[in-house]
């Protein structure tokens, strides 16, 4: 039987506010346990929530970016359950009246499959703390620093039909929220977490199959793998005559399998009701328009502009526009060096390689966009070759400083003086009888390929600093002269 996969995503996005959604405690990542959990976050008796204006603004900004209706009246509700990382015994969230109503996001997979994914709604809520399971004499430790961090939960319609579409959708959400500047996008730190609802049905069937929910996936790669694994499991199950049980499952990336989360199996009765400590959030058109006025250029628009303005390929434009900090960086490099293609190659090549290897976000790159631009200027004006530039870049990365400073200090300036190059070429030719003979013996139209050896020798002798264009010309001229 041919199966159709149906996927819906719930993405939790941590908003990059300075403070918690309902308290004035800092949301900075990585602090000592419980040092950023104030009386309100700990749910001390008598404490009360007050709503963070920036969390509201960011949620509205997101809604506007995904073509959604904005809830002019939204209501916080309490979702009641007991868990040690949930200090109040309820999560403050939105249910019946969320801040962001229906909207949509257009996606495209690497294979070029395009789809419009419906956004069911997005709501504001508070994050929970963390349970740490190191051994405290058989106990767990609770850190509530994260408790109360504002989240927008973005709930899609079940519109995706493959794991690749799901990953493309998640990437797109990531691109949008980072472009909007409402989330730092750091998935390793949990700034964006994904729950995938997965079901299968016979192709052509209208009714949805029973879905399972894959919890808390924190990388795009794992979204694809987790869904593929779960789909395979469901197909095997059904084809073996079994039935899919609606449940929450956990993806184990090490074993590449999903397994049932038994502890969450208990039928939950969350007893939602409007939070009496908070009042309805009411905003008007003026507010919405004021937020709309701050919308930055969104990834789709920027990608289109990159192809038209910079003549980039669809692929390059897509990669460079997917992450706002990267797109901003790229454009600054272009501005500095005036060569969009060269800038694209460097940002996606050497820079990306170093960022990856050092697990560094582009915002924290030790080589600034202006510095990289300065380096590319020196390639363009023939001060250095592309290969030398890589060496300069490495030094800029490790030691800091501008390209010019490093070129100067390390004496890497390209030799363009033809007299000096001629002298070196003469030396190389004089010491390479065998290769010169071979060159002479070769058919004239094959000789070009044989220049490589001589070129290598010249570069070796100059420490790579000779201008490759000039060397090629001189070599050709001198060798060809020997052939006459």
């Amino acid at each position, binding site marked *: 039987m041919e199966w159709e996969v149906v996927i819906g995503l719930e993405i939790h996005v941590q908003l990059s506010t300075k403070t918690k959604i309902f308290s004035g405690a800092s949301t900075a990542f990585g602090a000592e346990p419980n040092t950023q959990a104030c009386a309100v976050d700990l749910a001390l008796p008598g404490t*009360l929530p*007050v709503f963070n204006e920036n969390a509201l603004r960011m949620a509205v900004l997101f809604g506007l970016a995904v073509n959604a209706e904005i809830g002019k009246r939204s209501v916080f509700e309490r979702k009641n359950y*007991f868990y*040690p990382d949930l*200090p109040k*015994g309820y999560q403050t969230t939105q249910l019946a009246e969320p801040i962001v109503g229906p909207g949509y996001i257009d996606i495209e997979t690497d294979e070029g499959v395009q789809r419009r994914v419906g956004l069911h709604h997005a709501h504001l809520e508070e994050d929970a703390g963390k349970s740490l399971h190191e051994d405290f004499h058989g106990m767990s430790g609770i850190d509530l620093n994260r408790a109360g961090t504002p989240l927008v939960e973005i709930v899609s319609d079940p519109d995706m039909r493959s794991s690749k579409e799901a990953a493309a959708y998640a990437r797109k959400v990531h691109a949008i929220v980072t472009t909007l500047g409402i989330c730092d996008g750091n998935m390793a730190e949990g700034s964006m977490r994904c729950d995938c609802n997965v079901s299968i049905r016979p192709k052509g069937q209208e009714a949805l199959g029973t879905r399972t929910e894959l919890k808390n996936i924190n990388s795009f790669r794992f979204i694809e793998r987790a869904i593929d694994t779960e789909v395979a499991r469901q197909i095997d199950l059904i084809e073996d005559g079994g039935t899919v049980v609606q449940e929450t499952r956990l993806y184990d990336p090490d074993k590449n399998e999903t397994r049932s989360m038994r502890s969450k199996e208990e039928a939950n009765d969350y*007893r939602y009701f409007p939070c*009496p400590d908070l*009042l309805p959030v009411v905003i008007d058109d003026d507010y919405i328009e004021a937020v709309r006025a701050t919308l930055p250029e969104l990834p789709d628009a920027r990608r289109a502009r990159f192809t038209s303005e910079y003549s980039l390929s669809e692929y390059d434009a897509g990669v460079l526009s997917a992450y706002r900090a990267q797109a901003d960086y790229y454009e600054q490099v272009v501005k500095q060096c005036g060569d969009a293609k060269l800038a694209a190659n460097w940002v996606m090549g050497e820079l990306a390689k170093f960022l990856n290897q050092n697990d560094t976000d582009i915002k924290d790159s030790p080589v600034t966009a202006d510095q990289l631009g300065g380096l590319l200027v020196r390639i363009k004006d023939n001060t250095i070759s592309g290969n030398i530039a890589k060496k300069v870049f490495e030094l800029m990365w490790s030691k800091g400083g501008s390209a010019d400073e490093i070129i100067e200090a390390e004496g890497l300036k390209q030799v363009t003086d033809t007299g000096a190059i001629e002298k070196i070429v003469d030396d190389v030719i004089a010491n390479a009888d065998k290769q010169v003979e071979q060159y002479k013996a070769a058919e004239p139209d094959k000789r070009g390929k044989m220049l490589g050896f001589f070129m290598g020798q010249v570069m070796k002798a100059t420490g790579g600093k000779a201008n490759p264009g000039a060397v090629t010309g001189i070599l050709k001229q001198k060798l060809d002269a020997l052939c006459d």
Partner: protein
Amino acid sequence: MFDKTLAELAQGLERGDFSSTELTQAYLQRINALDSQYNSFITVTEEQALAQAKAADEARATGNTGALCGLPIAHKDLFCTQGVRTSSASKMLDNFISPYDATIVSRLKNAGTVTLGKLNMDEFAMGSSNESSFYGPVRNPWGTDRVPGGSSGGSAAAVAARLTPAATGSDTGGSIRQPAALCGITGLKPTYGRVSRYGMIAFASSLDQAGPMARTAEDCAMVLNAMAGFDPMDSTSAERDSEDYTAGLNQPLAGLKIGLPKEYFSAALDAGVAEQVRNAVAEFEKLGASVKEVSLPNTELCIPAYYILAPAEASSNLSRFDGVRYGYRCENPVDLEDLYKRSRGEGFGTEVKRRIMVGAYALSAGYYDAYYNKAQQIRRMIQQDFVAVLNDVDVIMGPTTPQTAFKLGEKSSDPVSMYMEDIFTLSLNLAGLPGISIPCGQTNGLPVGLQIIGNYFAESKLLNVAHQFQQATDWHKQTPAGLEV
């Protein structure tokens, strides 16, 4: 000295008849000597009180004092007080030393008041007799075999027994007004949002409101001046300018329009109480007020609506007491569920557990519409009844309670009969309106309370009406038999 009102004590301090330290020492001695009869204090903060008194005396010496500077007061034990146990009269919080002050506590501190201690109450403010306290019942100074009312029973009894000239209370369904009535004192529940709830241990968030309890309306006005005002820490706090509640006390009442809801004078009302209330209304007529009968047709629905909404909110508000971050934790929990269930099962008393379960049930899947939503709809109907009547009259008057102080144990086995105690008071919490209870007579030697209800933020009007009555009568000056003053 102990029979003086807060206003009279303020004059005494001002004149130099006594210092705050002398006054504070005298009250501390009196609490020490007499409170074993009433059990109105859970914690006496002697050291802190004397330090505050000393500071007040020093402030007075420099001439830098407000109206409340140096005057003793005591707080219901659900207001968080930094460095002092704040128990909400529950085993759950018997070991809880609050790391912070409630907004009203710091406001009263800043006004220079001296905190004598923390007052007994029904556990988590759930009760109308003060019998559900972990620290034992409070006894009514008008008869120690009788309840003082609740949940602010310790506050009412302490004021009535002259153990403190004023106290703070909180009122979710009548918890200021009902004990004030039963103990023969004055107690004001302000408009919802007028006094900050920050630092007041929540019972039912959309109903809870703190207020002053004292012998007279004038004293309540003085205390309310310090308590009331906008608080950015409380999202439900009303953004309104502060006002001086003492300023309008002496307005004459000529032309005042009083509404008497016919539903408040039903068969359930004790005849003696009814008679005293009618006498009091006649007194207002003498002062120039006019009286007409009005109708609040949904009065009877207040009780069912309230007993859904309050437990529903409470069931959620009390989830934070889980033995993890503060408060009672059971011995040797075997797992997480055991930790929760035993900490909460052992830490909460019976009435609290009952209400948590009612609330959890009312909110649970499948029952929300029939219970919670329905109750919220009835809540609006009740509010609209009041709005309509208050378009027509200035104030509504009636009995605060259907009867006078009952005997300890009389209703404790039957929660529903206890709930009927609140029939006249809890509609104001549902509607968010202000109300004051003042002593207006006695029947069988026990005080009767008159409830005066006003429009939103009409606290000044209520205090004015009450004060004028107290200028013309002396019910508020009555002392329980045998009480030395």
